[in-house]
C-alpha cells in the first residue's frame, strides 16, 4: 500500500513527435484527427512498414560548443528543447534555484544507437569506428542526459532511466523522490528516442511491426508502428507554480513474467495503476481520461483493454494516441504524459486513431472519436520489455 504524495507542479512541458514541433501542432493534429505516420523512409535497408518520423531533425545542428555530442538523438533533443519556450523555462529554474538544485532525469532506450549503427556501416580500413564518429560520449546510454545537462548548465543529480518503453514515465517518480527528500528544488524530466535500425529491425524480428499504420485496440490490428519523439517537463513544488497542472501520483511495478510479452492477466499493469491511484489519493471513478499504452500489438492491447474494462466505469474515457505518433518507445511516457496534460488543459479526449472495430476485450471506456468534455484527472500508462510498468496521474490545481 503506497502513501499519498504531495502533488508537484508541472510548471512547463513540451512535446515533439511525428505530429510536429511543440504542443500547438499536437493539439491541432488531435483536434483534426490527423495522424503523423508515413511509409518507412528511414531504415538503411528497405522494411515495409509505417513510421512516426519527426521532420527537421537532420537540420537541428547542435551549437559548436556542444559539437562533441552530435548525433541524431541529440539533434532531436535540441529541437525538442526549443519548443514551447522550454529551454527558457528550464534556464529560469536554474537561475531561481541554482544549477546544483535542479536535477535532470531523462529517459531513452535508443540513446545514440543510430550513430553507432552508422559507424559500423562505414568502419575505417582497420575496422575501427570512423574518425568523425570516434566520440565515446555518443556511444553510451547516457549520451542524451550528458548532452542536455551540459546544454542547460545543470549541476544537480543527473540520471538516465532506460527501462525500454516505460522509461520516460518512470522519470516522474525519480523526480518526485528527489524533491520530496529535499535533495533538489526542481527537476527537468523528459525522454528522447530516435528511429534507428536496431528498433525497426528488432521489433520486426519479433514479428511485432505492422505492415500498415498501427491500429490500437482494433480487432484487425497487426502490430506496432515505430516512432520517435522528444518531450520534457519541469517539475517543482506547487508553491512555485500554484496554478500549474499537477503530477498527482505515479505507480511502478514489475510483471515478473516474460522479457517481451505482458503478463496475461495484466498483473503488473494493474499493480502500477493501483500504486498510482493510491499515491494520488484517487478512486478509479474519479479518473476522467486514460491515455493507454495501446501499442497495437496483439497481446498488449488485449491485456490492457481487459484491465480498463474491469477497473473503470464507462464515464472514464480511454484511448491510445499511438495511431497518431507511432510507438515512440523510450519517449512514449513523456509524449503521452503531454497528451494527458493537454486533455486536461483543453477538455479534449482524443479518439483512438486507427481503431474502427474494437477488440472484444474493450469496454465502453474506449473513445474511438474525439470527445469534448471536461477532464480533471488523467492517467497515462506505459509498459516496457522486461515486464516494466509505470502509470502516471495528472490533475488540475483546485479552483
Amino acid at each position, binding site marked *: 500500500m503506497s502513501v499519498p504524495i504531495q502533488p508537484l507542479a508541472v510548471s512547463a512541458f513540451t512535446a515533439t513527435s511525428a505530429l510536429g514541433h511543440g504542443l500547438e501542432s499536437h493539439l491541432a493534429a488531435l483536434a483534426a484527427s490527423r495522424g503523423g505516420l508515413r511509409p518507412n523512409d528511414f531504415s538503411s535497408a528497405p522494411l515495409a512498414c509505417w513510421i512516426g518520423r519527426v521532420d527537421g531533425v537532420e537540420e537541428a545542428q547542435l551549437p559548436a560548443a556542444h559539437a562533441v555530442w552530435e548525433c541524431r538523438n541529440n539533434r532531436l533533443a535540441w529541437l525538442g528543447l526549443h519548443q514551447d519556450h522550454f529551454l527558457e523555462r528550464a534556464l529560469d529554474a536554474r537561475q531561481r534555484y541554482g544549477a546544483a538544485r535542479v536535477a535532470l532525469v531523462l529517459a531513452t532506450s535508443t540513446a545514440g544507437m543510430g550513430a553507432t549503427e552508422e559507424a559500423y556501416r562505414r568502419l575505417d580500413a582497420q575496422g575501427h569506428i570512423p574518425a568523425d564518429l570516434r566520440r565515446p560520449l555518443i556511444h553510451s546510454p547516457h549520451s542524451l542526459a550528458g548532452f542536455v545537462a551540459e546544454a542547460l548548465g545543470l549541476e544537480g543529480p543527473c540520471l538516465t532511466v532506460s527501462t525500454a518503453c516505460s522509461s520516460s514515465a518512470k522519470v516522474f517518480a525519480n523526480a518526485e523522490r528527489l524533491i520530496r527528500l529535499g535533495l533538489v528544488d526542481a527537476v527537468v524530466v523528459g525522454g528522447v528516442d530516435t528511429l534507428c*535500425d536496431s528498433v525497426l529491425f528488432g521489433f520486426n524480428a*519479433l514479428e511485432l511491426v505492422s505492415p500498415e499504420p498501427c491500429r490500437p485496440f482494433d480487432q484487425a490490428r497487426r502490430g506496432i508502428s515505430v516512432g520517435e519523439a522528444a518531450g520534457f517537463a519541469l517539475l517543482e513544488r506547487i508553491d512555485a507554480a500554484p496554478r500549474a497542472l499537477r503530477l498527482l501520483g505515479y505507480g511502478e511495478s514489475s*510483471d515478473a513474467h516474460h522479457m517481451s510479452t505482458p503478463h496475461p492477466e495484466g498483473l503488473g499493469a494493474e499493480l502500477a495503476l493501483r500504486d498510482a491511484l493510491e499515491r494520488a489519493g484517487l478512486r478509479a471513478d474519479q479518473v476522467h481520461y486514460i491515455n493507454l499504452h495501446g501499442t497495437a500489438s496483439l497481446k498488449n492491447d488485449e491485456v490492457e483493454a481487459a484491465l480498463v474494462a474491469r477497473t473503470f466505469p464507462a464515464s472514464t474515457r480511454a484511448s491510445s494516441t499511438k495511431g497518431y505518433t507511432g510507438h515512440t518507445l523510450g519517449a512514449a511516457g513523456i509524449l503521452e504524459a503531454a497528451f494527458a496534460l493537454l486533455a486536461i488543459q483543453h477538455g479534449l479526449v482524443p479518439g483512438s486513431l486507427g481503431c474502427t472495430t474494437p477488440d472484444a476485450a474493450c469496454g465502453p471506456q474506449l473513445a474511438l472519436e474525439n470527445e469534448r468534455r471536461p477532464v480533471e484527472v488523467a492517467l497515462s500508462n506505459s509498459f516496457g520489455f522486461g515486464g516494466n510498468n509505470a502509470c502516471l496521474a495528472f490533475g488540475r490545481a483546485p479552483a
Partner: protein
Amino acid sequence: MNTLPVFVEGIGLWSTTLGDFAALQAQEQGDAVTPPSARPPATFLPANERRRAPESVLLAIEVAGQAVAMSERSASELLCVFSSAYGDQLISDYMCATLARAPAELSPTRFHNSVHNAPAGYWTMATGCHAASSAISAGPASFGAGLLEAASLSQAEQRPVLLVCSDIAGSGPVGEMSGSRSSFGCALVLSPEQGLRSLGKLMLTLEPHAGLALHPGPPSGAWYESNPTAVSAWPLLQNLACGEGHCTLAAAATLALRITLEKVA
C-alpha cells in the same frame, strides 16, 4: 535533507579475480585468493535461463544474488535499481555488426535482451518480484548516481532496496569507445533503518560544483581501471571491506557524493 543515511545489509561482488565480498576481505587482509570461474554461476536464475542468458545478465544476477543472500531478505520484496554505464556491450556489437551486414537476420532474442533493463527483467522474473525495478545509467558516474538513486528510493519509500552496478568487457569497434576491458559487478542491499543484519551505516552527502575534484588522475595501471564500474566503486568497496572510512565519488559530471561509512553498534 542534507545527508541521506542508509544501512548496508548485503554486499555482492564479482570480478575476474574476486568471486565475492569475502574474497575481497581476504585479499585486503593479505590472504591468497583463488580467482572465480570465468562464467558467473548466477544460481538465482532457473537452469534453462542460466544456460541462455547473456553475460551481462549472469554478472548482474550473480552479484544481486550474493547481496540478497547475505541480507537474508526475501528477493521478491526488494525494490531494485540496476545501474550500468554501457549495458550489454557484446549485444551492442552483435546488433550493429548484423545491422550493417544483413539487418533482416537480426535475432529477436538478442534484440529483447539488448534493452538496458534486461538484468532487471530476468531478476524480477527469477525471484517473482513485482516491486518497482529500474535500469539506469550515468556514464562514468553510474556507480555514484546508482547509489544516490537507490539510497533516495530507500529513504523516500522507507523500504529496503537492492542496488546492482555492473559492466561487462566491451567488444568490437564499439568496445573501443567504452574502454571497458574486464567484467565487474557489485551489489548492495540498502535499508532505511538499522536492523539485525546491518553491516554498516552509509551517510551520503551531495557536494556540488566539484568538477575538478572529480577528474580522474593519471592511470596507475591498477586492474580496476579496466572497468568503468570497478574504478568508481573501488574506494567504497575497500571501505566496506575494512568496516569504515570516507570516500568521494562522482554522482554526476560536477556533483560529488561524499560517503562516510560508520560501524553500527
